[in-house]
């Protein structure tokens, strides 16, 4: 059941109706049951892995709390279990293929069969989320929870199960424990957010994605079209991922639960560090809190800080997929962040106008997206810097991309001015405004949506 289907809307409507009729304890049981039902739609067998993760998360939290003297051992077991399982599913075939290449490089014949492994969808997200709970219990940043239903729901809550946001127990688990109240303003703003998510996916991401796919399917598009394709991809991936997050947040808000924001207008970033505070915020902050800071952050001198930045970004790269292009992508971003820390010590950097910084950051990140979109590095080298510019055709596609991107800029302006609206109008006006926004999005989808939709890009991560 994909998020952008009528089936999902019927599912959410049914769940919402039943949910608000039930008392708190039963609400959580219902959410857990429907979360597994939702996940079983993808592949029923894979729900077992989700269940194992849930039970392990609960048990290790319990063991750490009850037996503090051996807490470190439990934490290690939990970490190796979560990361090991993730590694087996995501990286086994990559590892086998690399070993085969390495051995055959020495002239030895080896035939290691690749494994028929189905990667459990969303495992990268729920593995990190469950691990955060156990680490937080170990660090006494959160209380261990005795209620297995709540912990299992924290690992498997359906709106954010497949592609995040990666939540922390202090935020999400606490909400599961507290009473939620029905509020029409939340319902309408949830519906508006879902409609905007549908719009971003079906109108912006899928239409721009078609342009991107056409360009990247060409044998030798030339550098003009190649970079147009990369620009199209940077629009597509943002609209696609932001769409998923908004549908997740909207669905959750309808159920009275607030999920974290994953984006904060990344198009307005004025530096690499600033970009990572605005893009996939929950993953960036996870890596900062559970990898970068425990490794020493920037407290142990420049060289250690550089090492830590490289480790964090390589990990972030490989988290996205088992492929060298993601490793290169991660390393590229590490270089950008490290360079920024050195460059910003110069006075002239402070005098550069903000708009110029935004443009420069966008160009640098666009270059990075080429590694993200394309696994064949020779294709990037051959087409990114050589061949024909195809000026007129490039211009044609750039105009089309721009047209599809206009609603995103309108939305950015609306969000910026939102606080004025909220403070000026009462609840009922907000209900009406949210409904108008939602209706405009639905109408836009009917007129400009794609006939066939692709899966969300982040599903494969």
């Amino acid at each position: 059941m994909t998020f952008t289907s009528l089936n999902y809307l019927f599912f959410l409507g049914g769940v919402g109706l039943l949910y608000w009729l039930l008392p708190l304890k039963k609400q959580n049981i219902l959410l857990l049951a429907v979360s597994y039902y939702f996940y079983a739609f993808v592949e029923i067998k894979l729900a077992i892995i989700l269940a194992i993760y849930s039970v392990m998360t609960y048990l290790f939290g319990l063991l750490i709390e009850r037996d503090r003297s051996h807490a470190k051992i439990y934490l290690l077991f939990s970490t190796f279990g979560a990361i090991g399982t993730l590694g087996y599913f995501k990286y086994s075939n990559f590892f086998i293929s690399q070993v085969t290449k390495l051995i055959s490089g020495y002239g030895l014949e080896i035939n290691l069969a690749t494994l028929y492994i189905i990667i459990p969808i969303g495992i990268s997200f729920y593995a990190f989320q469950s691990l955060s709970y156990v680490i937080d219990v170990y660090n006494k940043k959160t209380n261990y929870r005795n209620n297995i239903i709540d912990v299992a729901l924290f690992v498997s809550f359906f709106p954010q199960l497949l592609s995040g946001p990666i939540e922390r127990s202090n935020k999400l688990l606490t909400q599961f424990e507290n009473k939620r109240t029905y509020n029409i303003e939340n319902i309408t703003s949830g519906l508006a957010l879902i409609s905007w998510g549908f719009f971003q996916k079906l109108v912006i991401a899928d239409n721009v994605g078609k342009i991107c796919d056409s360009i990247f399917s060409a044998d030798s598009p030339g550098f003009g079209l190649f970079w147009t394709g990369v620009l199209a991809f940077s629009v597509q991936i943002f609209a696609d991922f932001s769409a998923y997050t908004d549908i997740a947040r909207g669905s959750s808000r309808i159920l009275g639960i607030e999920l974290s924001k994953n984006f904060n207008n990344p198009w307005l970033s004025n530096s690499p560090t600033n970009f990572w505070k605005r893009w996939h915020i929950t993953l960036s902050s996870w890596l900062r809190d559970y990898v970068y800071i425990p490794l020493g952050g920037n407290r142990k001198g420049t060289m250690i800080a550089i090492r830590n930045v490289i480790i964090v970004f390589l990990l972030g790269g490989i988290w996205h997929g088992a492929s060298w292009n993601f490793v290169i992508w991660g390393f590229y971003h590490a270089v950008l962040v490290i360079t920024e820390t050195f460059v910003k010590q110069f006075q002239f950097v402070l005098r550069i106008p903000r708009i110029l910084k935004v443009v420069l950051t966008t160009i640098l990140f666009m270059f990075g997206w080429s590694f993200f979109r394309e696994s064949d590095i020779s294709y990037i080298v051959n087409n990114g810097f050589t061949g024909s510019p195809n000026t007129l055709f490039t211009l044609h596609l750039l105009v089309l991309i721009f047209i599809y991107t206009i609603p995103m800029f309108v939305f950015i302006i609306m969000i910026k001015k939102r606080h004025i609206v909220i403070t000026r109008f009462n609840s009922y006006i907000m209900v009406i405004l949210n409904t108008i926004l939602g209706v405009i999005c639905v109408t836009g989808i009917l007129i400009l949506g794609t006939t066939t939709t692709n899966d969300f890009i982040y599903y494969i991560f």
Partner: protein
Amino acid sequence: MKFRYLSILTLPVILIAYIALPAVPSLVLGYELEQFDHKSIEKLEQQNPSLIFLGNSILDTRIDPKTVSEITEIPTQSLAINGSAPGIWYLQLKNIIGQTSIKSPVVHIFFYDNLITQPISTTGRSDNNLIEPLLVYPEELFFSISRDTSWKDNLTLSIYPIIKRREEIKTYLNQFASLFSSIDSESVQFKIDSFGKRQIVLKPNTRKYYPFYEEIEKSFLPAIIQIAKEKKIDLVLVKTSKNPSVSTKIETQNLQKSYVENLSSYLNSNGVHFIDMTEVDWIDAAMFYDSAHIRSRYKIHYTELFTKNFIKNPS
């Protein structure tokens, strides 16, 4: 408390607004069914081909009708429609080829996997722009077989018929872009294709195969054979090969084999010639850009080999 009751009552009103208001543009702009395209009959009549090819992009990337004509010295035409499936081929056979005065044409239908026994008209989501110009109403048989749209799709289309005009509206956007680029909006896709297709990473074949005789009863194939007999059309079905590099599980391979055996005997018993290209040795992975389509640089080569092996020497 008062607010809560009020808000519960407000919810149905909001939901109705979500359903009703987006239907307004449909009322304003409307949608009229596209009429049957009589010109396609006249055009084919003028061309008067003795060899006709039907199929989708699988055919379009494989067969160049001019090359076939040159080799065989037989007038040849391809009526390939990208994204088409048996429902459309049935309509083309009945309402276009069958309506011409061409004497006993030989019609080759190109398909892959088990598409020929699928009760669908398009390989992707149902596309009215492809189907409507081929319909001569009431088309009872076509609509009784076609499983292109679910009841949910039909309901959505009847409330919001503007969905059917999506592609038309998008051509306006293309035309707007043309103002800046002076590139003809209709040639955009052609322009992209002219850069050639690169080979993509292949996914394993996970297609489902159901028992043949269950599929055949629900499919367009019996109707296609019937029309061919009525209109005295010499029908040839061509099952194309997939990219040999696509990995297929043993169980699926066995299901495929039994499917081809059953299809072959069914066609034989109905007097239809069947060409199974799955085991042809001159097709290799380098010719494909994905699991099923041939790269443009191999189109002429493929056409020549196909024509010499299967048209000039049909045995």
